[in-house]
């Protein structure tokens, strides 16, 4: 079980969600955040915009679905550049994947442990 935190452009989020939903990944949490990565030099006149609105998606998935979800997000959230097709632009976002030890469903107090055989804090990359 892994947790995906994806920071994407807000205008691409619905597209990403629809694409994930088509492959059966519909449970997720979204939140509005602000921040910046490499796009710090977003200057408008003399104003440097360092707090750029982004959308963050949090998805928890079984290990087997993680690579698929990451592939979908990284493909769909990428902007299309005419002069450089296939390469996104600065500011398209990041995807982080972390381990999840336990997942509890509050309704039933059911508990799912992490997949056996994986250490708690380290493991093979996805």
């Amino acid at each position: 079980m892994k947790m995906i935190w994806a920071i994407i452009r807000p205008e691409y989020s619905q597209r990403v969600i629809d694409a994930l939903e088509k492959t059966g990944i519909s449970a997720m949490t979204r939140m509005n955040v602000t921040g910046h990565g490499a796009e710090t030099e977003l200057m408008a006149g003399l104003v440097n915009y360092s707090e750029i609105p982004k959308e963050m998606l949090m998805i928890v998935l079984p290990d087997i679905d993680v690579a698929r979800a990451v592939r979908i997000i990284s493909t769909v959230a990428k902007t299309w550049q005419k002069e450089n097709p296939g390469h996104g632009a600065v500011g398209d976002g990041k995807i982080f994947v972390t381990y999840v030890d336990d997942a509890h469903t509050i309704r039933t107090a059911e508990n799912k442990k992490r997949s056996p055989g994986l250490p708690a804090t380290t493991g093979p990359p996805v």
Partner: protein
Amino acid sequence: MKKIIAIIRSENVEETKAALKGLGINGATFLHVTGRGMPEGLSPARSLSEERPAAFRAPDERQDGLPVPKGATLPVSPPKTKPGPAGFLPQRMLIIVAHDADVRPNINTLVAANQTGRHGDGKIFVCPMISAIRVRNGEQGDSALA
């Protein structure tokens, strides 16, 4: 050290805060988020049929015991739609960083405070956490947690 991420109903936030205070937990971060679970999981805190006014009940479920006159055309509830992809509902995300030994009581408290038994109660995730640093004095590790 573990990070507990709970996604709960917005209306249960005050109860949850009180329950955590009773447990002696002072540090928690609350975020406004929107979210959804499984496609069939969309349901409000109280089921709709409990609050449906009598006019919208089907004729055979009149609860005042009066006979339904023959040929009466009572309005019936709209047909149930197929469970489809649900919309995103406002939820509250709660983040607590706790010592390993405190994780279990925390989870029990969160479940007890938020369980209604209906879909949409939320999830609790426990993630490994490597370190914590107190900004005020640079204290690191387990002692940085209160």
